[in-house]
């Protein structure tokens, strides 16, 4: 292969509840079509996150118990993760991962659980209610529509410097009221989409891979990679 990218799967052994592993499989699938060898490793409890070592990071969602454990451990990686993000490192964060990048979320027993505040959003909770169902959003910059399945109790409000991943066309999105879904900050993409998100939205997978390639291979001619045609999958 012409190019190589290395992915950090944050807490891959703890946060893996909704087929999130599919996002990595799909990244590898399109990476191969782009002539890129994508390797991955899990970075979990008590292991350091070296911001120089990774070209992409993936951060999924899990069960309440596991997420509480992660919320404590991730404070020790906070500075390195913020360095990676501020330096333009590409990241995809889903559901619990999305919430933990923000300032806090509300746990199953009503307790406030601290995130790392790398992004400025916060997540409150709904009383005995979840947003469950198919969802369609439109990304304002590219005009692309993203399709997914949402299943979340948390209601997230975006903060300073963040823009939504898309505007809700149908479904609930971040909080059911402001028609936003997910977040983008620098090269970090956040969403509540399961499905998994990249399986239904190959264009987003391509965007993340291209961002990572451009960041690592500054002088490379990536026109062939940019020309990759993504076939519809849903």
């Amino acid at each position, binding site marked *: 292969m012409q190019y190589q990218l290395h992915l950090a*799967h944050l807490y*891959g*052994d*703890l946060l*893996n*509840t*909704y*087929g*999130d*592993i*599919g996002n990595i*499989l*799909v990244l590898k*699938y399109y990476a191969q079509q782009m002539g890129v060898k994508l390797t991955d490793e*899990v970075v*979990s*409890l008590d292991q350091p996150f070296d911001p120089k070592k990774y070209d992409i990071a993936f951060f999924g969602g899990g*069960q*309440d*118990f*596991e997420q509480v*454990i992660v919320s404590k451990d991730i404070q020790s990686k906070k500075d390195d993760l913020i360095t990676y993000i501020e330096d333009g490192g590409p990241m995809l964060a889903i559901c619990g991962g999305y919430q933990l990048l923000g300032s806090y979320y509300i746990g199953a027993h009503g307790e406030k659980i601290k995130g790392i505040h790398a992004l400025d959003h916060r997540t409150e909770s709904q009383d005995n209610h979840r947003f*469950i*169902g198919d969802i369609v959003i439109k990304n304002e910059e590219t005009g692309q529509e993203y399709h997914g*399945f949402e*299943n979340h109790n948390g209601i997230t409000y975006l903060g300073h410097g963040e823009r939504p991943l898309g505007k809700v066309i149908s479904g609930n999105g971040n909080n059911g009221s402001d028609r936003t879904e997910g977040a983008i900050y620098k090269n970090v993409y956040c969403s509540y989409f*399961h*499905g*998994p998100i990249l*399986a239904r939205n190959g264009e987003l997978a391509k965007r993340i891979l291209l961002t990572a390639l451009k960041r690592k291979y500054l002088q490379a001619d990536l026109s062939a990679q940019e020309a990759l045609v993504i076939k519809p*999958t*849903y």
Partner: protein
Amino acid sequence: MSLRSSIAITAGKSSYWFLHKFRHGGTSFPGKLALALDPKVLRTLAKDYDIVVITGTNGKTLTTALTVKALKAKYTQILTNPSGSNMIQGITGAFLTAQKGANGKKLAVLETDEANVPIICQYVTPKAFVLTNIFRDQMDRYGEIYTTYDKIIAGIKMAPEATIIANGDAPIFNSKKLPNPTIYYGFNNQPDQEQMAPANTDGLLCPKCQHILHYKQRSYSNLGKYYCPNCSFARPELTYQMTQIVDQTPASSTFVINGQEVTLHIGGTYNIYNALAAFSVASFFGVEPQASAQMLSDKDEKVFGRQEVIRLGEKEVTLILVKNPVGLDQVLQMIKTDQEPFSLAVLLNANYADGIDTSWIWDGRFEDLPFARIPAVLAGGERYKDIAFRLRVAGVSEDRFAERPDLDDVLEYIKHMPTDHVYVLATYTAVLQLREKLANEGYIKGGMD
């Protein structure tokens, strides 16, 4: 018996007689009717029975069937509920419709939905609880593994004298201190070797100190001889153990439990656990080990309904229900060991009973299938596009791959697949639709048990 109970029982029995005679009906409706007339009717109906409650995410149906089978070596009167009727209505219905037998204590072996364990235990006091495993199920309907276990425990707490017969390889069943006598069963068939579970595995945190568990032996998912590298939490001592797998094909397994060789006429490592659970329950009720082993080795077609072999023209079709991540993955791991040529069809629906979120198909390791020697692969069902992309990502090549949304086309395509044997993996409503079609065309007898 109170007048209310007696009216409820009569009404339930009459409705069963009517439904059975004229509508080929089941047992849930009579149970529902009787419960509406007297919510406590189950207490009256079950009073002459020793009750065994079998629960867990996967393996309930087969464990129940195998347990009944093994217990028959000693007991002549065993009541059980038909597969799927595992909530309070179905269970009440099973008692209502039971044949009246001789006097004296009788046995009831009940497949019980996890959330229905505390409901059932309000009315009956089981003699034993059998806990198979707790895995992630369809997340849009079920809770997390810990909340599911809490529901089961709420029921067990109402029967503190009952013996728990639990899968000792599942860390969750060792996570809470309970007053009940507890017997564990598990696998002990490999040499100890330091290892960890693969990343995409659920339930790996030590419940005592929240470190990630390590293993000395591991069978699949998070099941095995686990231990915590940070504290003393470890797999408990096993009373019943599977010590050797002598031979394993996708159609059968031969293995040794406590010195007894068993040949189980259904494939899959997960089914060895079900046989082991049945052996443990039978031993608890005093069945001789040799008699248990003999009963479990019997080739009984009716017991193995979840994995069905259907003749479709010239093809032999093995139809397997898939419904959650661990179950799907175990089926894939079983199929990949088949040395004979086969083709594959995967039918995905996403109706309520299947789970409306299809994400779980990504947790099955389709990548492990030997695509190079599978000459034809078909994606079908209402959500054929989702499963088609899953299979493409897993590495199926386009020249041997087809997509057929329509079920008639699926059957036609299967009839022309290049191998004699075809595996069809299907979600719950896809199985129902397929069986209905096969019944209409006369390939099988109607209905789903």
